[in-house]
């Protein structure tokens, strides 16, 4: 039983960044813009989040409050960075894949340069303890308490909160309906007076905010508040793309997909705790490939059935019929 608790406690902080970033990708792609730049956006958000933590850590502010403010900082930086993508892809009608790739390549290099110049290291190392040993009251509930409210991070609750908001915005509001129309049939949206360019800017911007926050949450929940220019976010932005596709561009399925990948990763890091796997005597490093191999396998088998937003990747041009 304790192994199960351990797996769940460790899985959630990993699942949450994947969830948020994949939800961001969903908003962008359902509005019609392919967002390969998620990895870069994540790292950008993580970097500014960590930078903020670095400067504020000496003050006496409560770590959980710092997470909340850091989240705003990271979300805002993600938004700014994503504007580069929207400007290129929506206004200038540039190729979305190439724009995304270049945005991804820019950030790790910029972080390395910055860190070398000002910190004489490869990244930003903070000294903050965000870990929550046990939530008062809730942590005492049998089973549930131990699974969800002990040895955890604030990011988990926040992440689930964002999921709920996303579902509501996506399916219950006028904004969501219009956004989805733009990713499927922008000409139809245009003909009923919806501003396709605006909706696409909005979709990419939301992905910037969620991507930035996801990056910061990754840095908090997985890297203990640090950021490194070499390892970056370990391909989590790309993994989030896989989660989004596996989740069929739908929020609840994306949650399940994020949990699936996070579970594999946690499993890979906890091999020694599970006697059966440990006894197999396979080097633990091999297990660490698990989430990435699973990505390839899962995508190879599900892509045939998957139905991407119809108009994604195609710059919208009023004049074409």
């Amino acid at each position, binding site marked *: 039983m304790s192994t199960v608790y351990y797996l769940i406690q460790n899985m959630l902080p990993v699942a949450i960044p994947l969830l948020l970033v994949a939800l961001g990708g969903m908003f962008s792609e359902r509005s019609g813009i392919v967002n390969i730049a998620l990895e870069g956006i994540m790292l950008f958000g993580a970097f500014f989040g960590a930078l903020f933590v670095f400067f504020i850590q000496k003050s006496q502010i409560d770590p959980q409050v710092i997470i909340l403010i850091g989240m705003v900082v990271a979300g805002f930086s993600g938004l700014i960075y994503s504007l580069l993508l929207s400007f290129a892809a929506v206004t200038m009608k540039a190729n979305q894949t190439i724009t995304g790739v270049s945005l991804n390549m820019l950030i790790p290099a910029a972080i390395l340069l910055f860190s070398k110049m000002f910190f004489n290291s490869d990244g930003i190392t903070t000294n903050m303890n965000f870990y929550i040993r046990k939530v008062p009251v809730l942590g005492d509930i049998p089973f549930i308490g131990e699974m969800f409210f002990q040895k955890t991070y604030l990011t988990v609750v926040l992440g689930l909160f964002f999921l709920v908001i996303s579902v509501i915005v996506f399916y219950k*509001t006028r904004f969501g309906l219009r956004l989805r129309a733009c990713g*499927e049939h922008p000409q139809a949206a245009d003909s009923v007076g919806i501003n396709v360019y605006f909706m696409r800017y909005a979709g990419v911007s939301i992905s910037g905010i969620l991507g930035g926050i996801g990056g910061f949450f990754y840095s908090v929940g997985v890297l203990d508040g640090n950021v490194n220019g070499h390892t970056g976010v370990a391909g989590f932005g790309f993994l989030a793309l896989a989660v989004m596709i596996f989740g069929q561009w739908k929020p609840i399925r994306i949650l399940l997909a994020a949990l699936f990948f996070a579970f594999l990763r946690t499993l890979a890091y906890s091999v020694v705790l599970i006697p059966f796997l440990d006894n197999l005597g396979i080097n633990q490093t091999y297990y660490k490939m698990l989430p990435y191999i699973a990505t390839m396998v899962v995508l190879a088998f599900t892509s045939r059935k998957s139905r991407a937003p119809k108009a994604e990747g195609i710059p919208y041009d009023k004049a074409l019929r």
Partner: protein
Amino acid sequence: MENYIVEMLNITKEFPGIIANDNITLNLKKGEVHALLGENGAGKSTLVSVLFGLYQAEKGEIKKNGKEVKINNPNDANDLGIGMVHQHFKLVEIFTVLENIILGVEPNTLGFLQKTDARKKVMELSGKYGLKINPDALIEEISIGMQQRAEILKMLYRENEILIFDEPTAVLTPQEIKELLKIMRDLAQEGKSVLFITHKLNEIIEVADRCTVLRKGKYIGTVDIKDTTKEELSRMMVGRDISFNIEKKLTEVKEVVLSVKNVTVPSKLHKNNAVKNISFDVRGGEIVCLAGIDGNGQTEFISALTGLEKVSSGTIILGGKDITKSSIRKRSVSGMSHIPEDRHKHGLILDYSLEENLVLQRYWQPEFQNKGFIRFHAVRNYAECLIKKYDVRSGQGPITMARSMSGGNQQKAIIAREIDKDHEVLVAVQPTRGLDVGAVEYIHKQLISRRDCGKGVLLVSLELDEVMNVSDRILVMYEGEIVGELDPKKTTVQELGLYMSGAKRNTVKEIDNAE
């Protein structure tokens, strides 16, 4: 001075290389059905797009109730009560009918959708005008007819009083067309004004009060339907007389060129087979018509015949060779030409130029390439020759993008490509859909000339007139089977209808199997 609800005065709209609308005037009265007639590429869609705010005219003005208005986008049009059903529907496939109807004018409180009231209003309208729909069905799962009803409800929901229909009947079955025409009349009776584009003169005579005719971007005139005839309308439209009767001389039927034996094709939509064990022959020098109501297996059969899909059993023999399992290229080289049903999907590469599209079936022949390099001047010469021979009109000649060409000329380009290459049998699937009477006449002539040259022609058509007038032999398809073989000279439209609806059947003479 009459009072018009909408006046479009001296409208001029240019596209690169072409003046689509040249000083056109169109006046619409309240409560009338006004038809807009013209050849393919005459500028009808462009003109109504200007009225709907999709394009801005370079010159001219638009008045509503006598006051000048500016329509810069569909929102402006909507505010003026102008709505439009487009030639290609503007519906989001993964949304429900209801969501599509309210899109853009969603009832909401603080941004949250409130669908209950909207649903009530939609169902009321649906009942009032006899527009049957299921509000919760996804667009991708419903018939074209219901999609069109959704489009009409979209306009009525917005309480538009000027309703534009751009070729609404091109995609409908005869039954659906009848219903639509009645709905248009009802709407006009209510005091709404209907602007209606069609190529079918019968529909204009049946439903319209007045008709405006355009030719090559110019205004020809507006006539009262009461004092005109089909012949006069078509003369105004193309500038010469059109014969509605097709002249065919008797020809010798030659040997079998295409033989289909016991072909069965699975369906993509359901578990049963779409085509069930059908057999027939096409001989040189005859036009065989595969008639039937849409959705009775014609599409699946043609896909299997042309190699787009696999058969599950049976054989197809072309000019003595078994091509059942051959690639599409092989079939083409062995003598099959194909004018596909969906010209945008299977007939043309819309973002290639006209000349590139014209050599699609031949670019690999030594004439057009040298060690893998295209011989561009040969391609250009060939394209120019075809354009001239088949009178394909476009803005910039060989270098025009296929996408910007009008429907009729896109079809002419496909026909030029398919007829000009060596072939034994020509498979033509609904070749005249959406085309003007001039183009229809032209295409029928081409089909008949193939027959007169001793080639076999397999024509798939949903239109009874075409079936009766063009073919030498009719095979009726019903629920994936051939339920009757008829001689157009000895049968009537009524009898044909009985076969098509499955009410009657005869056993096909099994000439082919006896051999």
